């Protein structure tokens, strides 16, 4: 593992960091992609818990369902689906960038609005359907 030798030891000028810049939607969404990704990674614990409980038997599964139907548990699940859809929609935006499209400033701003709109819309749609079916 090669490190940037001696130059890293001296005090050197730093590039401006987050607090310097005026906030833009594109910037906020870029940061949000990392935050939501990290949250989703932690949330894999919930998926694991659900699968283990189901495999373990009716009693443990009943515990999970009780937590899910509790208002606080429901709120966490609702938040989790929003975070999931936001990361998914912005991830697709990243794939479009990877393909070489959408770098224009105005287009990037518009696509960030589309991402947020899609995340809100899909989250609401999912939960409305869950309440209709359930």
């Amino acid at each position, binding site marked *: *593992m*090669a490190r940037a030798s001696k130059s890293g030891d001296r005090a050197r000028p730093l590039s401006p960091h987050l607090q310097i810049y005026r906030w833009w939607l594109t910037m906020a969404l870029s940061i949000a992609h990392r935050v939501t990704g*990290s949250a*989703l990674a932690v949330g*894999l614990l919930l998926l694991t818990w659900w*699968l283990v409980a*189901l495999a373990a038997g009716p009693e443990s599964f009943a515990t999970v369902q009780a937590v899910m139907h509790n208002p606080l548990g429901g709120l966490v699940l609702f938040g989790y689906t929003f975070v999931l859809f936001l990361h998914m929609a912005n991830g697709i935006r990243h794939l479009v960038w990877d393909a070489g499209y959408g770098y224009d400033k105005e287009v990037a701003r518009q696509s960030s609005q589309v991402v947020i709109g899609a995340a809100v819309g899909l989250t609401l749609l999912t939960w409305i359907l869950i*309440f209709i*079916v359930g």
Partner: protein
Amino acid sequence: MRTAIRQVRGLGAAREGVGHWKLQRLTAIANAILILWFIVTAIGMAGEDYLAWRAWFAHPLAAAMMLLLVVSTFWHARLGVQVVIEDYVHHEGVKVAALTATTLVIFALGTVCVVSILKLAAGG
């Protein structure tokens, strides 16, 4: 400000830098497909009980899709967490420790999920 050629010579690139990037995209596409499928499933199963979910998992296609979902999402999480750690943890020792710990935890949890799904698929 140039790095001396003698320092560079013999070290060079590991020639595997693109692999991480590609796998992150590959698992991202797989995640989108598998998670949308699971959300549609979950909507259809809303309000269903323990026995209904057990019956659902007993179907080989459902179990196979769930296995793919677990492998793809946990792999994607591992790759993403790695990037975040490498960007924000600057102390070499802490960084290596954090990467090792998160990798071990993610592999352990993923394996627990796989075993659970196999148990459900076998109807045990």
